[in-house]
């Protein structure tokens, strides 16, 4: 809807934005290039997914849409298990990587399908060493998408936030809103390969995605921490709630006026991270600063400011030229609680270069204790191309989003920002090995959860 008082310029801006928003992030089909740069000209029809693509006559479109709805309804089962799905080929890991891959959680959850705003219409449980899809899980009715995922880190337990999107009017504009939300615990049985989806009795408001900024399942799988901004209790500042999934008990920490526990977009990146002893790391970010604090969740709840301590602080002027500037969405606490792991870059001018690393900090002193996978690129680092997804107890083995070494595919655009093709890989001080079949995406909201 457009208000009658709007100028032609405003109408045009609103209409073009609305049209553009119908294309969700990450929804571009794969690029199909011809056999070689000198190859013959291909017709457009040949290129769509490698098969002939025909436009439907306009008159048939509503029928096709209706048929699609019927098909969707017919197949909409809460949990579908797909053993060895046809068409999906599992990648075999190279033999010398097998021992490395064996150190990782055996299964992970990948988001799949495109909901109205780019959310996952379903998730897949995959085998880490091969990428093979072992089970497909769809949100139970009335939910239509899975908006966010968190993993315990053991490869067996995950928490999914299911949501139902509806299009509604707000201030004269049509927009998408969540009208129902629910946390579900997903347990994957390694013997039967059957995923068990259980609704968690945690009350959530309809507009949860506006204020819930991240959640994390504890390594034991027994506690769920949820971050809110603004705080639901104080209406200003930040809030963290910790739910005991066995007893239903809840503890709440609030910080009126505290900085947001969010990385620009709610649900993007891991703003919360657990250690086995109940310590919870949380990130507070603004446009020009980032801080990491540690909260002891063994206490009764109360003041988030008083019960937490500042460990890492990236604030001040000329921040991007400081050594080891934080560049990742995720900041992970090792399960041992001794280290914090994140991706960092040290930028130098003339010539413009970025030294990229995965940096580990001592939680006791806040000092750098180890750097892994350091490499240098010409130009500025790009967003979403380097991050950390999982760490073992000591931080010696990481799952990362990174550039595959040895491939000459880093380019620098006219704006001096580099681009490369990120791969999800396992990283140790000695080795870097891509994880076979792991989905690759730059969107931190769609990274797989281990």
């Amino acid at each position, binding site marked *: *809807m*457009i208000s009658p008082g709007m100028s*032609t*310029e405003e*109408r*045009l*801006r*609103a*209409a*073009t934005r*609305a*049209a*553009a928003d*119908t*294309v969700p*992030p990450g*929804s*571009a089909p794969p*690029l*199909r*290039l011809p056999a*070689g*740069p*000198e190859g013959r*000209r291909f017709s*457009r029809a040949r*290129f*769509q997914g490698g098969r002939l*693509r025909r*436009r439907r006559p*306009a008159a048939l*479109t*509503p029928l096709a*849409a209706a048929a699609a709805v019927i098909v969707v309804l017919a197949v909409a089962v809460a949990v579908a298990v797909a053993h060895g799905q046809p068409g999906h080929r599992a990648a075999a890991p*190279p033999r*010398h990587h097998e021992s490395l891959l064996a150190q990782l959680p055996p299964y992970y959850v990948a988001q799949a399908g495109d909901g109205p705003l780019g959310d996952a219409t379903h998730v897949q449980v995959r085998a880490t060493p091969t990428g093979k899809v072992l089970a497909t899980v769809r949100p139970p009715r009335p939910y239509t998408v899975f908006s966010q995922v968190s993993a315990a880190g053991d490869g067996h337990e995950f928490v999914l936030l299911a949501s139902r999107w509806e299009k509604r009017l707000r201030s004269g504009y*049509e927009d998408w809103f969540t009208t129902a939300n629910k946390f579900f615990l997903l347990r994957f049985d390694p013997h039967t390969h059957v995923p068990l989806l259980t609704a968690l009795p945690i009350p959530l408001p309809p507009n949860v995605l506006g204020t819930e900024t991240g959640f994390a399942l504890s390594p034991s799988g027994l506690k769920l921490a949820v971050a809110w901004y603004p705080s639901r209790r104080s209406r200003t500042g930040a809030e963290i709630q910790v739910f005991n999934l066995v007893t239903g008990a809840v503890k709440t920490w609030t910080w009126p006026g505290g900085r947001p526990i969010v990385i620009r977009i709610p649900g993007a990146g891991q703003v919360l991270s657990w250690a086995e002893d109940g310590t919870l790391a949380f990130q507070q970010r603004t446009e020009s600063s980032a801080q990491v604090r540690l909260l002891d969740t063994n206490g009764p709840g109360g003041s988030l400011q008083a019960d937490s301590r500042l460990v890492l602080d990236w604030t001040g002027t000329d921040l991007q030229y400081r050594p080891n500037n934080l560049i990742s969405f995720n900041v992970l606490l090792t399960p041992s609680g001794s280290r914090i792991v994140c991706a960092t870059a040290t930028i130098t001018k003339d010539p413009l270069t970025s030294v990229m690393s995965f940096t580990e900090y001592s939680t006791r002193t806040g000092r750098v204790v180890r750097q*892994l996978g350091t*490499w*240098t*690129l*010409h130009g500025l680092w*790009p967003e979403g191309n380097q991050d950390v997804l999982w760490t073992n107890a000591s931080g010696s083995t990481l799952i990362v989003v990174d550039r595959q*070494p*040895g*491939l*000459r*595919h*880093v*380019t*620098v655009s*006219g704006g001096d920002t580099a*681009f490369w*093709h990120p791969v999800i890989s396992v*990283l140790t001080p*000695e*080795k*870097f090995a*891509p994880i076979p079949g792991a989905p690759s995406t*730059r969107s931190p909201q769609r990274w797989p959860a281990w």
Partner: protein
Amino acid sequence: MGTRASRTGSGAGPPDDEAPADAARAVTVLYETHAVGLIRLAVVMLGDRAAAEDVVQEAFCGLYRRWGQLADPGKALSYVRAATLNGCRSDLRQRIRAQRRGGPAPDAADAASAEQAALLGEEHQQVLSALRRLPDRQREALVLRFYLDQTEPEIAASMGISPGTVKSTTSRGLAALGRLIQEAGQ
């Protein structure tokens, strides 16, 4: 697989223009970074997601075929954006030609994607429909100015016309668009 130590300092430069494999990688990286933005631009121009994807796909294939002839690979994005706009122009012209031969009317071209229309409000659809009735140059100038928020010099560079012409084209296009919207509302 090499160790991480071997990463430092290696392979950080731009792709080798002569190597097809590197051209493929460079074009693929560019596609993965900018495809959604360009599909959105083409959807604004065409109102049809499938046609928009076709146009962008073709633009990147064109870039790949001409990769070795690019004087400055840093301008690849500008090239592919211009190719996308050209592709949209051709697509809209084909629709008009088809209509003259007794095919669906240009306005029905919007209906070619009923799913797209269903996602937009009626009034947004009205504005976009009017936009697609404008002459090529006016339509492109308005989209670059009010959707991509490009400055006049940037639009001039994209369209290969002078900044003065951009100003007059935008002004005339906006006036024509206002008239078309008004007519459609009556």
